[in-house]
């Protein structure tokens, strides 16, 4: 298993996803001799997991069963332990395309946070790219480094514990893309510019508040960035279900046999999905 490469069989040291039911999954670190408790019973790693095919049904001690799935950044995002508010797949997908991430890209990111976006970036730039990620909180920086190692992607990433607004990303002139998710991104814009390749590249700043966006746009324009674009992406989940519509009774009528009609349709959640943040993209021209 790897976050950046598929494998077929579950192995010792893998991080897998145990699927218990809809909206019910948990990450599991596979280890010889270890056990995992679930509401369906115990899963014994050595006998039930190691050597089995990903996607298999695994029976637990109480008789119930679960599926074991291969890890993907998307599954990690909805199952990772939160140390900060994270970015979800909808925003991540937009960022990935708009920053033009692809194998070989060199990316700078701050803050690392819980590593949700980081893992998605690593997946997109592997095997030949590199991620420089900066986190000013020492424990979070250490935890992120640990996780990258555990997930076998550490060769693709460098974690730096510093303040990006003061000390930058720790590299200059190497990045194809820079991503900022910090409280005061306008203070880091000049560092973003310095970290980027001379030939140019793409930058993205994520901010929940429009006031932050305003200041960031001002800084981007000042620093010579072009093609500024601020947008928001929202995902609507359609709930597929069968509904029954009653038919009116206008009195005795041979041609109207039923009392109701079944309809396969979708319904939307009660409220629009919540606002996560504004995504501001820009292009650094050649300097």
């Amino acid at each position, binding site marked *: 298993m790897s976050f950046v490469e*598929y494998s077929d069989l579950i192995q010792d040291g893998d991080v897998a996803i145990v699927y218990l039911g809809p909206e019910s999954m948990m990450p599991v670190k596979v280890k010889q001799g270890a056990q995992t408790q679930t509401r369906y019973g115990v899963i014994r790693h050595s006998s039930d997991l190691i050597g089995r095919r990903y996607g298999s049904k695994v029976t637990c001690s109480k008789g119930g069963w679960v599926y074991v*799935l291969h890890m993907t950044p998307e599954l990690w995002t909805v199952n990772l332990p939160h140390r900060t508010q994270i970015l979800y797949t909808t925003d991540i997908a*937009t960022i990935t*395309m708009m920053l033009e991430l692809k194998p070989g890209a060199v990316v700078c990111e701050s803050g690392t946070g819980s590593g949700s976006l980081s893992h998605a970036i690593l*997946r997109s730039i592997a095997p030949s790219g590199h991620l420089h990620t900066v986190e000013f909180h020492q424990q979070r920086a250490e935890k992120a480094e640990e996780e990258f190692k555990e997930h076998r992607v550490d060769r693709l990433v460098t974690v730096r514990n510093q303040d990006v607004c003061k000390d930058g990303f720790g590299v200059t002139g190497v990045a194809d893309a820079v991503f900022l998710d910090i409280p005061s991104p306008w203070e880091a814009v000049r560092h973003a510019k310095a970290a980027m390749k001379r030939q140019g590249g793409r930058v993205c700043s994520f901010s929940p508040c429009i006031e932050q966006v305003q200041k960031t*746009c001002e800084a981007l324009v000042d620093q010579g960035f072009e093609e500024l674009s601020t947008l928001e992406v929202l995902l*609507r989940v359609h709930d597929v279900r069968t509904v029954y519509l009653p038919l009116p009774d206008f009195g005795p009528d041979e041609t109207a046999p039923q009392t109701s009609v079944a309809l396969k349709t979708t319904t939307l959640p009660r409220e629009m999905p919540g606002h996560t943040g504004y995504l501001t993209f820009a292009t650094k021209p050649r300097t």
Partner: protein
Amino acid sequence: MADNVDEDSPDRIKAGDYVVLKRGDIFKAVQIQPKKKAMFEKQWFLPDTAVGQLYGSTFDVAPGGILQPRKPKDTEGSTDANEAGTDNRHILDDGKSQKLTRDDIEILKGQGLKDQEIIQQLVDNSSTFRDKTKYAQDKYIKKKKKKYENTVTILRPSCRILAMMYHGREPGKICHMRYDMLAQMLTLANIHAGSKVLVFETCAGLVLGSVMERMGGYGSVIQMFPGGGPVRAGVESFGFPAHFHDTLHEFPICHVNALLAGTLDTACKDPPAASKPSVASAEEEQNPPTAEPTSCPEELKMEAEPTSCPEELKMEAEPTEPTSCPEELKMEAEPTEPTSCPEELKMESKSGAEKINDPEKEEREKRIEAKAQERKVKLEEKRKKLASAAALLEGRNADGLVIASRFHPCPVLLGLIQFLSPSRPFVVYSQYKEPLIECFTKLKERGGTVNLRLTDTWLRRYQVAEIPPISSSRNSLR
């Protein structure tokens, strides 16, 4: 080219490159070809005049269609120092603010004034410009720019740019897939280097190209295609390096059932035509290709090719004028000139006692055989491609499946999902919701899939204004 110490060389535009032209929010993909004109935003020009310049450069379109690099930062800055009003309470919208008439502007254009100069003239001759607020002034200039701008920026193609281009220019070709939707699909399908991805799309190759971009030339992509041949125009526009195409395979869906049943024979696929060239070709010539998109056994496909060459038909009808099809002659080993000296041929013919028709008939037969040989080679190539794609599919261990087409997604998905390994994602796009509801329901009934979700995305662009300065500008009361 000669060895140049030009470290910028990889960033320079070269002849033959696939590029994207941009003006504002309008894009167009073209290939830079010598002397070839391009039409963009109601203007003709020659993209090859930009060869040697750097990607990302902006050009003025000079007379004759020549592209001239424009110095950066010629445009902005002119309004920053200008005075501006605080609001529009005293501005009258009577259509009389602009002193220049349309004729005046035409004269200026005729004098060869650049677009910024024309805009400056318009600003100077507007009686209300100074009274407008800063925002209104910016809006005015932006509007004039859109009208008078005469520039083109040349960009490297990318999934982002091409997706926006197709959505803006020809959404019908891509089943009206918005670029934010494509972004979601690529991520949710976990497209990454080193995997084996199946793609079924009728989006002019945009989806296929995007998948290939995210795979970076690693792993393999198998395009499942309906009908006679895979459509890939969009893939060209990405301008991938040649080795990317080594990872791209194709497989016609008309053979899917055979492959799944294990009855697909990719070994000997020689049609009767190869063994009896003269007979088969006679049949072919008499049967022009039928435009049947659904039937695609090799034989019919191959037959479609030679008959599309009208010269051949002409040849058969009038065997005494083979020069109407010079390609045929080139294929011959002998540099013959049959029509000019039939006597010579007579002399070279094997048996002097043969009738007068014989040399021509021999010529004809040789040509038929050469054509049959060519056909055989092409067939063999096709067979090899089919075999290699089949080999990749047989294991039923694909890592990803992406479907985005005008076809009903349900049968497509139920058919192709059989090639997917367990514990791998798949994504199906449809312009319409109902077929996806059907897919969802059928998959639930069939079992064997988890985390099924039917979603759509919405994208909204925001207009971000400059933070107004704390000290207000001059009072608009005059």
